């Protein structure tokens, strides 16, 4: 087993008391505000430029029981990701948020956040309406949405967001993206510096603490990797694909079967850091363009070809042997999207496991058997 990195311990510590993490607690103690956000089409830079700390709404480090959420919904047709957020809201664990900002990814996530707010009086700002395609009209429209979001934040908190402030915030967030890309480029090695479970700890911490502090941690991590030369032994290289995953324990269990998870395509993973905000005359226009995520869109966006090409590109860049494609029950966009790229990747020589699973994973008997069989397909080479 590779030596534990000191910076990794610091990063893991951030996630321990989720949702009200230690850095979030310290931030609030200074009398400052926290804005919860749902969906990566929400431009975090705007929240940051307003002087608030953006905090992403997700589930925690482990799968939780959804008693309150299920009671409220009578087990209705919503995904376990949105039910997990609702559960945490109903338990009052998100009570430290001053307001919630959302875009329009899918109905479940956003409507359930509204329900949670209804019970716990966390105000929701008007949603950013995200177009479902990319063209000039869509960019123009989303620019309008971003400007309205700015105004809503300003009015809600009684602050002004200057053009200088937004430019600074963009630079800060671009630095995160650049360094996360650097870190992932190192994962392209046969013997990557981090396990997939550790990478998920990093990605989780990114959206649960002040960004300046996270960037410092990330720089420290890159430096420590360089000086220690830390590596994980070579093993078949896989990606875990899907909507969203926040439980490092699931990734750890997968890796314990003898594979390295070297990349992901989650909206809290690659899709979060892949695209930079390009410099332009107007920072607001640049923001609007970037936050439509033209290169690595989620399956709610048309055409699906973009996503297929992107996944195929990842498979080549990271020299993947296999992909575990997670689909959550009731998550229509991902369930319907999977067949579109699965056969293409299989044709390109990548083994794909279609795994229907609830948010957070679990590793019960049958799920384990399926993942184990998948690993055997990649690594059980014997002459019969």
């Amino acid at each position, binding site marked *: 087993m590779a030596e534990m990195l000191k910076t990794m311990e610091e990063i893991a510590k951030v996630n321990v008391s989720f949702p009200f993490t230690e850095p979030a607690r310290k931030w609030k103690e200074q009398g400052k505000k926290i804005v919860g956000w749902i969906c990566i089409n929400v431009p975090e830079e705007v929240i940051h430029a307003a002087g608030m700390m953006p905090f992403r709404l997700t589930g925690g480090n482990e799968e939780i029981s959804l008693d309150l959420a299920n009671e409220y919904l009578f087990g209705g047709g919503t995904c376990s990701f949105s039910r997990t957020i609702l559960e945490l809201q109903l338990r009052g664990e998100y009570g430290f948020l001053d307001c919630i900002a959302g875009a329009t990814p899918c109905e479940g996530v956003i409507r359930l956040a509204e329900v949670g707010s209804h019970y716990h009086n966390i105000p929701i700002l008007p949603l950013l309406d995200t177009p479902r395609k990319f063209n000039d009209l869509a960019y123009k429209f989303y620019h309008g949405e971003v400007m309205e979001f700015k105004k809503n934040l300003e009015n809600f908190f009684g602050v002004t967001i200057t053009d200088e402030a937004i430019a600074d915030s963009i630079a800060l967030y671009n630095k995160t993206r650049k360094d996360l890309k650097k870190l992932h480029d190192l994962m392209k090695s046969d013997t990557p510096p981090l396990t997939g479970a550790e990478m998920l700890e990093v990605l989780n911490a990114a959206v649960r603490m002040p960004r300046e502090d996270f960037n410092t941690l990330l720089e420290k991590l890159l430096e420590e990797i360089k000086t220690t030369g830390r590596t994980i032994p070579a093993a078949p290289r896989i990606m875990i694909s899907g909507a969203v995953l926040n439980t490092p324990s699931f990734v750890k269990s997968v890796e314990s079967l003898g594979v390295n998870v070297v990349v992901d395509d989650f909206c809290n993973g690659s899709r979060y850091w892949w695209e930079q905000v390009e410099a332009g005359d107007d920072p607001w226009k640049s923001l609007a363009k970037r936050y439509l995520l033209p290169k690595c869109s989620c399956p709610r966006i048309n055409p699906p070809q973009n996503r297929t090409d992107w996944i195929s590109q990842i498979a080549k860049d990271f020299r993947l042997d296999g992909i575990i494609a997670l689909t959550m029950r009731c998550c229509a966009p991902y369930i319907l999207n999977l067949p579109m790229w699965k056969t293409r990747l299989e044709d390109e020589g990548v*083994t794909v496991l279609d795994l229907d699973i609830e948010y957070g994973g679990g590793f019960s008997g049958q799920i384990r*058997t*399926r993942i184990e*069989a998948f690993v*055997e397909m990649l690594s059980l080479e*014997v002459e*019969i």
Partner: protein
Amino acid sequence: MAEKKEYFRWVESTYVNPEMDWRKADVISAGIDVGSVSSQMVVLCDGQIYAYSNTRSGSSSPKSAKNAMSLCLKDTPGLTFDNINYLIGTGYGRVNIPFAHKAITEISCHALGANFMYGPTVRTVLDMGGQDCKTIHIDEKGKCLTFLMNDKCAAGTGRGMEVFAEMLKVPVTDIGDMSLDVAEEPEAVSSTCVVFAKSEATGLLKSGWSKNMVLAAYCKAMATRILELLTRIGVEKDFAITGGIAKNKGIVKRIEKLIGVEALTPKYDTQIAGALGAAMFANAIYKKQSKKLSAA
């Protein structure tokens, strides 16, 4: 008091090849498959079937594995566990087999076992076990290329069949023939859940249906449910069925009719496929390891 008849019981079996002498073998390998309903052990001498057992699973995986072993080695003159060079565990209880050198999933093992049992032309394997069903695409060497597995659920599996045998007081081994002995094929029972299907069947019996008709309706429901797994993966010829339900003609015939492809005729007990595959892996892995050792 008369002994209570147990309708769910199926025939437990053992086999020893009388023409083989295990003492002459270079490599003795074994596989044990501990499933939720049944357990098997297969012993290979230089890759050929020497002995096997097929028995009901007990209350714990280690116990089931031990049962399968003592049954398998009962009539093998002088052969004990110590003579076995390599043993692999598979099935639901694979990680709880105390004397196994390694565990491999039942998916990889059924793929390889089917390749041995039915030959290199098999491309699609349907395993119908006690607790779940899986469809597997394999290549000419018996390597798993893709697979699908149903949710953990008794419907469409051996356990569901046993429940029906008890309810209708019909020996489980008669169900297939009885279900085919109907004047007209009935509609399938509408529920895929064993619990609901049971109450639906009770209603049908009360309304005057014969046992045969109820069984036909249940077998049809099982076949239809399995059809989903087969159409999703795509049936490529040759097509073979493994597991306990492969012995139920009522299900097999209905599946063949639904997909328009006939399954290959089994030459071995279909329940040993998993243990057989495990024993073949054991043989190959042991040989690979000894080669490495002698090279070093």
